[in-house]
């Protein structure tokens, strides 16, 4: 476009990017209170190294560790109408949006990406709880439809990491309509015979749980995640009694038959590789560290070929390393 958008803005962004310059080198575990050094925490995918508590992780940080060598490409999501109801509570909706965009550095509450995971092509979508509580508005519906369409094009599975306080009230009925819209996306995959795998993360609630988050071929949750339709406070007000310890936790839902598995974040990638490859009828993945993806070795090539080869150039300019 022009030098302002091509040069000045990225430069400014890089100066102020939170990811480049951590404001806080230490994070306190929400559960046990242990102080965790940021590098150590990033290595453990934001899981407390002391108590195993699974903390918030941003979609990009998740993708960096999900895809082979952290290489993935954003799947473009068609833009939704901004502020269709001209919604205003104590703040205007566009102001809330801008604040969320500033805080997260992302445009909206769900990111869609494609790449390879254990050499298995997949499309993945991740909801960002830091962005207006991950709330499901038109963007989330568009993202899931775009993700499903890309999965259909590539004949690959779709994996969705959910996290949301529910539907986005500021989009009124149009947010509610994302329940049927996202269901259409799931049906497209089902008809094409492509796996749709849901990973429920903390917290997944309301209209999100009551639509695409509960329609997976396989339902996996992260340990300790709160998963519900109505939240514990609403229920306590309705029935006027205290709820049992751990009610609506991932482990509680597993016991009640609502999930297939509860899997620790550190094991999630390997498990997803095993599951998607089986469902896609592919041979088992090669275990251990993957060699950097490069051109396939020719039959006569010797073992010393290209040890320091650059990552696959086909991943495009949006790729994150």
């Amino acid at each position, binding site marked *: 476009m022009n030098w302002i958008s091509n040069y000045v803005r990225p430069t400014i962004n890089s100066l102020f990017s939170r990811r480049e310059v951590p404001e806080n080198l230490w994070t306190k575990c929400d559960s046990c209170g242990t102080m965790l050094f940021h590098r150590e925490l990033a290595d453990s995918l934001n899981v407390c190294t002391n108590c195993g508590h699974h903390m918030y992780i941003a979609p990009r940080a998740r993708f960096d560790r999900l895809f082979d060598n952290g290489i993935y490409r954003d799947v473009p999501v068609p833009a939704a109408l901004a502020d269709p109801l001209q919604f205003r509570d104590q703040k205007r909706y566009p102001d809330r949006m801008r604040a969320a965009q500033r805080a997260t550095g992302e445009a909206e509450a769900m990111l869609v990406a494609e790449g390879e995971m254990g050499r298995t092509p997949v499309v993945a979508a991740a909801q960002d709880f830091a962005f207006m509580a991950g709330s499901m508005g038109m963007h989330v519906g568009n993202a899931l439809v775009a993700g499903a369409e890309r999965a259909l094009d590539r004949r690959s599975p779709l994996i969705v990491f959910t996290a949301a306080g529910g539907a986005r009230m500021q989009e009124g009925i149009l947010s509610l309509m994302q329940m049927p819209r996202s269901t*259409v996306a799931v049906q497209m995959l089902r008809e094409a015979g492509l796996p749709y795998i849901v990973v429920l993360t903390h917290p997944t609630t309301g209209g999100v749980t009551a639509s695409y988050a509960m329609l997976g071929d396989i339902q996996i949750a992260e340990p300790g995640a709160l998963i519900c339709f109505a939240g514990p406070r609403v229920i306590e007000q309705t029935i006027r009694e205290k709820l049992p310890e751990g009610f609506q936790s991932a482990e509680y839902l597993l016991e009640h038959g609502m999930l297939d598995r509860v899997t620790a974040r550190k094991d999630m990638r390997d498990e997803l590789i095993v599951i998607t490859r089986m469902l896609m009828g592919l041979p088992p993945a090669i275990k251990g560290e993957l060699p950097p993806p490069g051109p396939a070795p020719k039959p006569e090539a010797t073992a010393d070929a290209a040890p320091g080869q650059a990552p696959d150039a086909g991943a495009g300019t949006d790729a994150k390393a």
Partner: protein
Amino acid sequence: MTHYLDFEKPLAEIEGKAEELRAMARANPEMDIESEAAALDRKAADMLRDLYKKLTPWRKCQVARHPDRPNGKDYIAALFSEYTPLAGDRNFADDHAVMGGIARFEDRPVVVIAHEKGHDTATRLRHNFGMARPEGYRKAVRLMELADRFGMPVVTLVDTPGAYPGKGAEERGQAEAIARSTDACLRIGVPIVSVIIGEGGSGGAVAFATANRMAMLEHSVYSVISPEGCASILWKNADKMREAAEALRLTAQDLKQLGVADTIIPEPLGGAQRDRTGTIERVGTEIGKMLKGLSGMDRDALIAARRKKYLGMGKTALAG
């Protein structure tokens, strides 16, 4: 006994006075009060018209929840013949918040599914105020699949404050049950038409209202969250429900503009509760029209049209 809403109090006074005058005249036949009573009637009629000409969104919510509004079972009794209720989800229980079964609509066999709120304390408790548990949604899925197998159109009547937020409901998979019901609405290869007759409360309503054609009664509402719930979250004060009702754009008129509702069924002056029979008839006429409009379509066309309708939503914005 007419049940008056808070904003109808002035009307209640005038109608009460007219009634008092007539009662006095019945006791003393020599009194001539008719002209005075008729004047009061005219005043009441004017006031009713003015009150209902432009109801605020919050008042619409109140009318939509009016205790004298016709309920699901009233529509089923009046509009369907040979109604044969079919019970249970085959897993756990029969949910009385959801009525359903096979019946004839204008002689044609259909599956009808309706929320039922109940009309007095005993029936409201029995029907759980129209708040379904997972069993209600699973019963609906079973009935929709039955309709699909036997080529019967599905008619749903929506009137619920929302899905029941209870401990057992959560343990038995309320969210999954709602998701499967919406999934069934979109998956079946027969026509599905829906009318929101009162309250369309969030996910509990979506599970039935996802349809080829959806009509709303003039003063019904359909919303992602109740105005009270929205107010307590965004305004941190549940008393701000009037503001929340305005902001949510939950009226039939706004939903028609947004392309979520296909048609609006006019209500008699003063709301459905003032002429129950007339309201039910109008709903019947609209159901007939909606079914007729879908009668030439085969399975694939019905499914494709439904998907296209929902995927295409969100292209129109409302003016402030």
